[in-house]
């Protein structure tokens, strides 16, 4: 009997959540500090399933955090640093107001700072965990490194981001880890800053990510046996010595700028003269895994060849092409690259060098032409990387309409529409040569084919008409039974037919329900195929129209 009456909102989900303001008061922090703390520790607001219960009957939109998360936050040592910083700001303001400059100096010298190392260790206990989040970190660091150093964000952060991104790019170059490249419409802009973005939030994320990226870089460099912080190879450094180094950057920054040029190799801890090819471990062949092993070996060999795609080639970048991304891509595949001296520090050879094999230009025409080098547009580099082979250079000459830049991240499944350019590339990869195409030959071939087809059709039709006439006239057809010829059985065809037969039998034996499902699936597949055919037909029509136009223009 008796007992206390049950009150609403005292147990269950209502007690598991806490509103943002309550949480803030519990931690005794201001709102921006609270936000910063949550971002650093990785604590995010949750949307409860039953909002009315949690919100004690009202449906007002509020931000909720889990109570256990906030209790966990209370143990964080940075919280006290935030409070100290608040007091520091107050004292500094007072000293400024009273114009006590010695106090200002003293306070600034002892400004409270904090480090995020323990937070990174806590959030990413192993190296693999850190690598999972690395793409977000890279995005942010690259973004911040492009900001102008005006003072809206801390200049130190921008410098640190630049250093980390340069280190990362050097690592990728040294390890030849680049696989796919794509260039999209959203290019990096250097001078346009939208105003409705909260910079403090982005800066907090960047703070955490710079710490993470720094540690990851350290680990990656050591896994490759390179010195960290990165130093240029002593050989390469002597090559890079120039007279007017002051023209490019301040002394403190000139080393970073040389590194960021990506044109020379990095120093190693234990110097090796040549890179030894890593041999694949050979596991004892087990029956079932043989195929897998072979497939893996094949892949490995392909990778090895792909890594040396541009080896032996010497590139020169003209002034108007995007230098950093092209230099990065070329270097990642073993090529050598240089540019004009006035563009950036770190150019190893000049435009007048005779051994240059390719020059990347983006203008309609070039003044001086050297004979033994190809003048191509920058898309060639990207397309070669994506196709994993060296594409023919003729499609990318100056002034030529470029073939479309296909995205390497799209994987077409069977039945989907595959653009003809991709088919061409796949053919090239397999080693077949696409028929030596000059447009006249193509036209002629097509015309001949069309004529042939027409003739054949007409002949057949005539035959049939004759036979019908004869039948109608009641005459017996002059068809004789001749001894049959033995057709040579093609074993591959036989096998195919057998499989088709089996399939048909299986379909017949299915239950009604299963058949119904099967029909549905096939309908869906066939629809895809039909659509692909439609698109192909459209493309053909488009091409024909273009050819027609060209013919008219010629006439």
């Amino acid at each position: 009997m008796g007992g206390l009456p049950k009150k609403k909102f005292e147990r269950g989900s209502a007690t598991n959540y806490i509103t943002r303001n309550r949480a803030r008061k519990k931690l005794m922090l201001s709102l921006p500090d609270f936000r910063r703390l949550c971002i650093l520790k990785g604590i995010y607001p949750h949307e409860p399933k039953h909002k009315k219960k949690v919100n004690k009957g009202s449906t007002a939109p509020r931000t909720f955090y889990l109570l256990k998360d906030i209790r966990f936050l209370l143990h964080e040592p940075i919280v006290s640093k935030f409070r100290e910083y608040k007091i520091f700001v107050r004292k500094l303001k007072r000293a400024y107001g009273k114009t006590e400059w010695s106090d200002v100096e003293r306070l600034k010298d002892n400004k409270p700072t904090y480090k995020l190392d323990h937070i990174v260790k806590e959030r990413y206990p192993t190296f693999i965990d850190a690598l999972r989040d690395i793409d977000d970190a890279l995005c942010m660091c690259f973004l911040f490194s492009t900001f102008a150093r005006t003072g809206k964000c801390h200049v130190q952060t921008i410098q640190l981001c630049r250093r980390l991104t340069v280190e990362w790019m050097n690592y990728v170059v040294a390890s030849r880890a680049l696989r796919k490249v794509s260039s999209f419409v959203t290019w990096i802009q250097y001078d346009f800053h939208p105003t409705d973005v909260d910079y403090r939030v982005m800066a907090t994320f960047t703070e955490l990510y710079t710490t993470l990226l720094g540690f990851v870089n350290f680990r990656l460099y050591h896994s490759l046996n390179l010195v960290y912080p990165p130093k240029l190879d002593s050989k390469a450094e002597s090559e890079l010595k120039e007279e007017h180094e002051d023209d490019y950057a301040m002394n403190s920054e000139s080393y970073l700028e040389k590194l960021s040029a990506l044109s020379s190799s990095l120093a190693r801890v234990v110097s090796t003269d040549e890179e030894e090819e890593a041999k694949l471990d050979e596991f004892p062949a087990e029956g079932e895994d043989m195929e897998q092993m072979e497939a893996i070996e094949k892949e490995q060999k392909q990778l090895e060849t792909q890594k040396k795609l541009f080896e032996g080639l010497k590139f020169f970048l003209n002034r108007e092409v995007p230098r950093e991304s092209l230099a990065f891509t070329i270097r990642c595949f073993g090529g050598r690259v240089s540019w004009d001296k006035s563009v950036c520090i770190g150019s190893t050879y000049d435009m007048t060098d005779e051994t240059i094999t390719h020059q990347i230009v983006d203008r309609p025409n070039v003044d001086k032409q050297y004979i033994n080098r190809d003048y191509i547009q920058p898309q060639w580099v990207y397309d070669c990387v994506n196709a994993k082979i060296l594409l023919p250079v003729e499609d990318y000459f100056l002034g030529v309409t470029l073939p479309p830049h296909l995205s390497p991240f799209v994987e077409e499944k069977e039945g989907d529409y595959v653009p003809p350019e991709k088919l061409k590339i796949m053919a090239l990869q397999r080693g077949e040569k696409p028929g030596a195409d000059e447009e006249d030959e193509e036209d002629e071939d097509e015309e001949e084919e069309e004529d042939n087809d027409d003739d054949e059709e007409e002949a057949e039709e005539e035959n049939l008409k004759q036979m019908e006439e004869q039948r109608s006239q009641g005459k017996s057809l002059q068809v004789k039974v001749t001894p049959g010829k033995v057709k040579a059985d093609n074993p591959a065809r036989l096998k195919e037919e057998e499989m088709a037969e089996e399939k048909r039998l299986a379909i017949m034996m299915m239950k009604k329900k299963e058949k119904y499902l099967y029909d549905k699936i096939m309908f869906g597949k066939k629809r895809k195929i039909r659509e692909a055919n439609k698109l192909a037909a459209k493309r053909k029509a488009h091409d024909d129209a273009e050819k027609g136009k060209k013919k008219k223009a010629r006439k």
Partner: protein
Amino acid sequence: MAAARRLKRVAASQPGFLTLKPSSEPADLVGSRRKRVNKNKKKNWNKFSDIADVEEFLEDVRHQERTTGGLLSEKSDDTLFFVDLGQSEKPEQKAEEPDEGKKRKGKASRPLRIDLILQHDSHIPPPKDVLAYQQPNAKKLRRIAQKAEQLAARGVVPRRQKRLLNRRPIDRTVNKAVTEANNNPDRGYYNLWGQESKDSADPWYLQQTGKKLVKRPEKLNEKPSVLPAVEVIAPGGSYNPDFFSHQVLLQEAHNVEVKKKKQEDRLEKQLAVNKEDRATEETALREVVEGLIEEEDDEVGAPNSKEDDEAAVAAIAVTEKKTERQRKKEKAEKIKEQQRLSSRRQNAQQQQLFQLRSIKTSIKQQEQKTKKKQVQRKAQQEAQKAQPRRLGKLKFQTPDLDIQLSDELAGSLRQLKPEGSILKDRFKSLQKRNLIEPRERAK
């Protein structure tokens, strides 16, 4: 000094000497009857000799020295008197101009008259302030300083000085706060994942002293959204796209715009007013005039109201009491009704045996329905996971697709005009993945 004093006394005792102060009555000069005293004893020299006149004179002399700087009688005529010559004539002035120039210079070199007047010219210097020269412990300090000098001459360095010299000089050039900050561009990194945890001490000790770090709850390691951090743009977004992929992307953008337009149209429709409902002059006039014209309306209204009254009266007819017969009838009817219903129920139950098949089918149908609904609900839940959650006051606004129209497509990288901004894209991605709540700039 004593000689000077004696001279002054002698001068004062001359009968013709005039003092500054007017002397007292001349009666004093005449000798009066005095008592005869023995002035030979030393005791009586001070007691009975009258030195008032001398004292007076001396006082006067001192006064002169104090105020005017010396005896007036000894001063020259120039200092006391000057001859007033009146205004000098002009030609003399002109003749004196070159001289005056020199005089002016001389005057400039000479101090001003007012300064001269204000100088204190008494012969008596102002008294020294003894306290200003007094230093407590002066002797002691002097002695200590001397000793220290001697020691230094010998080369012995006292302990305190030794410690001061040993103290390292403070590095004032580098700011400590800057080097320790988290975003210092030259900060060093170490192998974070390679070190073993410090298991040196007892875990209880570590916990009690607050040195042990609290374990992070497992739930926090789950990502708040299944979306990937970096989403690859569709192939139509390439700077030199394939025709069909570009068309596909354009189609998507078109759909988004169509939806927006539909919403706007719907809003407009809801707000639209029928043209016929609008007030014309006629209707406005009728409204204003309503109720004022009374002639026809009354006659039409009156007969109607009478009829209504009668009907109302009929409805309030008096209900008579029920008779017993009626009650019995009602009971019997009730019982019959109940019996009928129960027999029907029994019959239905018995017949259910023959309806088994249809019952089975209906059950199966219901089960299928519930299963279908379950599957649908699960699919919806999965779809919801990919959606951004509602985490605050503002709803998440999907960003516009970054595409360029067919005529904006550039043929080469150089002519490419970039679309959108990566900063905004990153910000929206953070919101989409439920890491922060959607925020807008405060207006």
